[in-house]
């Protein structure tokens, strides 16, 4: 799965390199910047991955947490080891969160490597029109990766909860992915403006804030609070469901 994610920036970089399609607008943000600086492969890849591929893989991993063990027949053995139910939930959630970080870093690192291999590097023009050094831009990229990771924590908590509802991992994965798509679709409907700040996907593309000068932290804070809210609510729901669930798998 991580390899598939790594393929995204590589395909983008190769496509841009081969077609030289820098102009004409359209396509994801930053696409036309790649020819000037390979680091933009990272941001294009994230722009593509954040709404689709990352939620997809996170949905698979988070949906599999409990349901996967149940369908394997290993859940009962973990519980009588005894792993402790709350401890198992916590460990599983940490695993899913670690996957969020790993997945984001894989996209970033693969993007940076292929970008620097195929395109020039050097100082980087950020969204504000200011130019920053490559080291500064790499630091910002790490912050972007951190932001994207935090953005996915709410979805991971939802996946964990859904995973405690069923013994069929595919069902939990599909449900989690559908919820993430639903959240994004609702976020596109202007009639539901009032709802948007409460959607866990609302700030997913806010990572551009780290490419401004000065860096804008307000979205990061709001996003972190929102994701923490989702984590608390769905973590507690997962506890409620799992703490006394009859393990019959």
């Amino acid at each position, binding site marked *: 799965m991580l390899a598939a994610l790594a393929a995204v920036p590589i395909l983008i970089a190769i496509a841009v390199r081969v077609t030289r399609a820098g102009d004409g607008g359209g396509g994801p943000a930053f696409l*036309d910047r790649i020819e000037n600086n390979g680091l933009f492969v990272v941001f294009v890849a994230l722009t593509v991955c954040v709404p689709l591929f990352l939620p997809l893989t996170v949905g698979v991993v988070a949906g599999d947490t409990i349901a996967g063990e149940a369908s394997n027949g290993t859940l009962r053995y973990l519980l009588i080891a005894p792993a402790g139910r709350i401890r198992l939930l916590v460990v599983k959630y940490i695993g899913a969160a670690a996957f969020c970080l790993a997945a984001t870093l894989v996209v970033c690192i693969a993007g940076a490597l292929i970008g620097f291999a195929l395109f020039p590097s050097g100082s980087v023009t950020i969204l504000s*029109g200011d130019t920053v050094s490559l080291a500064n831009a790499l630091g910002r990229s790490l912050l972007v990766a951190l932001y994207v990771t935090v953005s996915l924590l709410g979805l991971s908590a939802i996946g964990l909860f859904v995973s405690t509802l069923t013994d069929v991992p595919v069902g939990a994965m599909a449900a989690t992915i559908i919820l993430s798509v639903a959240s994004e679709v609702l976020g*596109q409907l202007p009639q539901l*403006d009032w709802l948007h700040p409460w959607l866990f996907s609302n700030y997913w593309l806010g990572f551009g804030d780290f490419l*401004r000068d000065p860096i804008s932290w307000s979205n990061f804070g709001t996003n972190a609070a929102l994701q923490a809210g989702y984590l608390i609510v769905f973590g507690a729901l997962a506890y*409620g469901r799992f703490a*006394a669930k009859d393990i019959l798998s």
Partner: protein
Amino acid sequence: MSKVWLRWAPAAAAIVVVAGAAIAVPTVANASVSLPAKTPTQVLELVASSHVRAFSGTVEETSDLGLPSLPTGSVPSSVKGGTSADIALLTGPNSLRVYVDGPTKARVQDLESLAERDVIRNGSDVWVYDSKDNSVGHSTLASRQHFVRPGSAPQATTPDPTDATPAGLAKKLIAQLEPTSNLSVDSNVRVAGRAAYDLVLTPKVTDTLIGSVSIAVDAETGLPLRVQIDARGQKANAVSIGFSSLDLSTPAASLFAFTPPAGAKVTELTKDASAGPEAPGTSATKPAETVTGHGWDSVVTVAAAGSLGKLSQSAEFGELTTAVAGGRLLHTSLINILFTTDGRIVAGSVSVARLQEVASAQ
């Protein structure tokens, strides 16, 4: 049964706590503010005596003009660059970061998702940067001249760099509307964490769509922090422009030093064409404006430029406007715009009948 309740208790508690925090935080922020009472005249004096030279902050703009909501991204760029209004600005919430240091140093950043438009004034240099196409516009001003905020329509003479802020807008509104308004001071408010007086201007005239204009004035500095315009018969604010955060320290000088990035298209703009690089055509043939009346019920008539033809053929134009006697009407809760059949634009915060009257009189 009690066992079942016990295990769901943490979930219920979590939902209550999170929902509580979500509701309580804004409520606490808006908790009643006690300030020494002031008359409207005293508040006006406070504004007039305000001498904030340098600040930085985030400005949030929201509007509810009763227009049909357009799905994000469906507004074609031809409309975005149009003459009458920036529709994107009209329909969605918008977030600006503003940095001001004295009258000749200012920077406004229009924050969009994964994009940004910057206008930087540093002395006599004005730079306009758009990250979407990595383009730079540059013009040189005589001192204290043209300052525009990104995406706004060209304005003839607005020397105050704080124009993009609630402060600039408030001062302009007070200057224009104060003579024809009843003034009052509403209960105190808190804006961007600062205690403020809420000055309310209510029109003396009745033939206007505007219900009232409230201006939150910082009790400490006299800087207007927020402007809210209410339309008659609409509960939500028609327009709200206010600081969500404000810092009165002097911004770093490096913010105002702008060098066009390598690889950017740099366009040298003439003094007049300060509307930004995305609409050079409209500015070059700037149409003549006439204003009928003054204050709340004033009506502006614009002999439309050529770009209106293009605009009026778009599908959105058809959807947003309705046919009335003498042309097509764009109705919002705050403003009526009449596109006459002979190609003029007649606009004002007044009834359709008044617009038709002005249109036929000319």
